[in-house]
């Protein structure tokens, strides 16, 4: 069945909720936000475990929740599969019995075979008779996934399912979920506070902050073109600065932006009138260092110069922050491959030149931190 999940939720009071989102069949929607942003509450509302004051949850043409019409389907009626952060396995039942409990709709004679198939699907063949305590964190997560899928759920809900396992296991589970999702024919909502995880797994990303959905879209768009400075901060865009729109040139597809002593070229972004103050941002990866030994054409694109103030190798990648001449209070961050950093002898206090790629510069309204 092809059906879409549409969710609108409102709650007042200290734990305010104002959420709108939708998720289509076969799509993974990542709900991202810091802890306390209300992510889990949204997920629990979809599952029927929490009742917000107002709102509507619709799956296909079924209304699951509408307090105005006194509609509230039970979790049993909604048929959702849910994987909790700590998995919430039944500790006294073996892996296969955990899964079999979710197969109550099937004739008893089929349950064991079907549960076995599901455990094979999540690569747990051979461990059917172990109790949860005898399984590793990653294996427990797989049991929870198999159990959530057992009912052929309408919607699959994943509540930070990767947060309780070590990094190596997490990487393996990511790959498994990516494989598994090709077989999933349902909307999948993934709650996470990890942006990289969301970008890797999700088709769309929804930013949640203080109970409000702020922006929804493909992960790359949201993470490089945030609608507001607040979202830029939430998607960890460190290069967020203030500037002034100098001129628009529609014909050239160019907007010119004043930043300290520099005039930066950006793509045409006419939403902001000439002369207005804006916040602008550029992803670290769109700041390119110049190689002193081999000048290239790209160097003409928004060149800036500065002193390296911070140099942090992080394995394959190195994070570099420079103090740009003329704008001393605004460190510019970039990420360069570690071998490039070595080849160019990058080090603290060295002077380097860099280009801000025009395509990467994104304008936003001025920040209103106090408004939130």
């Amino acid at each position, binding site marked *: 069945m092809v059906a879409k999940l549409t969710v609108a939720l409102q709650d007042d009071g200290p734990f305010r909720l104002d959420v709108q989102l939708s998720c289509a069949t076969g799509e993974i929607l990542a709900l991202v936000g810091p802890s306390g942003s209300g992510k889990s509450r949204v997920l629990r509302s979809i599952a029927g475990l929490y009742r917000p004051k107002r709102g509507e949850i619709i799956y296909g043409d079924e209304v699951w929740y509408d307090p105005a019409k006194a509609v509230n389907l039970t979790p*049993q009626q909604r*048929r959702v*599969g*849910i994987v909790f952060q700590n998995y919430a396995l*039944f*500790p*006294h039942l073996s892996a296969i019995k955990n899964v079999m409990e*979710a197969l*109550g709709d099937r004739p008893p004679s089929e349950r064991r075979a079907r549960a076995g198939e599901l455990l094979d699907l999540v690569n747990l063949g051979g461990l059917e008779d172990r109790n949860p305590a005898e399984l590793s964190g990653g294996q427990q997560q797989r049991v929870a996934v198999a159990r959530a899928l057992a*009912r052929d759920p309408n919607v699959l809900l994943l509540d930070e399912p990767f947060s309780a396992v070590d990094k190596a296991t997490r990487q393996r589970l990511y790959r498994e979920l990516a494989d598994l999702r090709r077989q999933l024919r349902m909307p999948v909502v993934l709650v996470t506070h990890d942006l990289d995880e969301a970008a890797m797994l999700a088709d769309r990303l929804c930013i949640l902050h203080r109970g409000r959905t702020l922006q929804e879209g493909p992960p790359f768009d949201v993470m490089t073109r945030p609608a507001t400075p607040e979202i830029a901060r939430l998607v960890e865009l460190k290069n967020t600065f203030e500037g002034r729109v100098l001129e628009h040139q529609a014909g050239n597809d160019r907007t010119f932006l004043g930043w300290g002593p520099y005039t930066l070229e950006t793509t045409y972004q006419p939403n902001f009138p000439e002369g207005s103050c804006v916040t602008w941002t550029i992803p670290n990866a769109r700041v390119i260092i110049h190689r002193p030994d081999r000048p290239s054409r790209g160097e003409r694109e928004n060149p800036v110069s500065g002193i390296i103030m911070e140099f942090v190798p992080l394995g394959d990648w190195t994070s570099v922050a420079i103090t740009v001449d003329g704008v001393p209070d605004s460190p510019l961050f970039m990420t360069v491959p570690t071998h490039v950093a070595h080849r160019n002898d990058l080090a603290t206090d060295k002077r380097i030149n860099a280009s801000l790629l025009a395509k990467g510069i994104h304008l936003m309204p001025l920040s209103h931190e106090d408004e939130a």
Partner: protein
Amino acid sequence: MNWPSLILSLKLAVWTMVVLLPIGIVLSRQLAWRRFPAKGLVEAALALPLVLPPTVLGFYILITLGGGSPIGQFYDAVLGRSLVFSFDGLLVASVIFNLPFVVLPMRRAFESIPPEVREAAACCGMSAGRILWRIELPMAWPGILSALVLTFAHTIGEFGVVLMVGGNIPGETETIAIAIYDRVQAFDNAAAGLMSAVLLIVALAAIGITYAATSSVGRRNI
């Protein structure tokens, strides 16, 4: 050895457990998971038998259930017999004074079940009854068992309340604890000693069963 008294005590203990098992499960689940008005008051009322002198508790039960009370009169009118100074009255009293011994361990046991586990069960499509039977009771089992053992041992040994509500009618309301007192009053230490030894063995067996059962359950869950 006063066999009728021992049998009466065992019968009272078993019936108390039978009556309190469902009451305890219902009450302790509510107290463990629900929030409702006057919850504190209910908790205090349930704990009262722990601190109230047994004779005082027995006195109030006697007044409440006695022939002059509405409850006593109603009982007499329906069943044609008195509630006090009978086995029925003993059972009612026993259920009341054992409530905290049942509710406290059971409540702890139900509280120890993570809410997500019950939520996961609901999302698995399990009905409330099936969740109780397949998930909650097996997980709360050690607490339920220790509640029942406490009730059993406590009922066998209870003296003050039983004497107040039941009187001391041989074969009817004379429990073994009263019989022991009776024998000591009559300087029959041999009989009192024998009965005391039997009670000691029963108590040790009860504790032993609890430990054995809970530790094996514990191993299974860890």
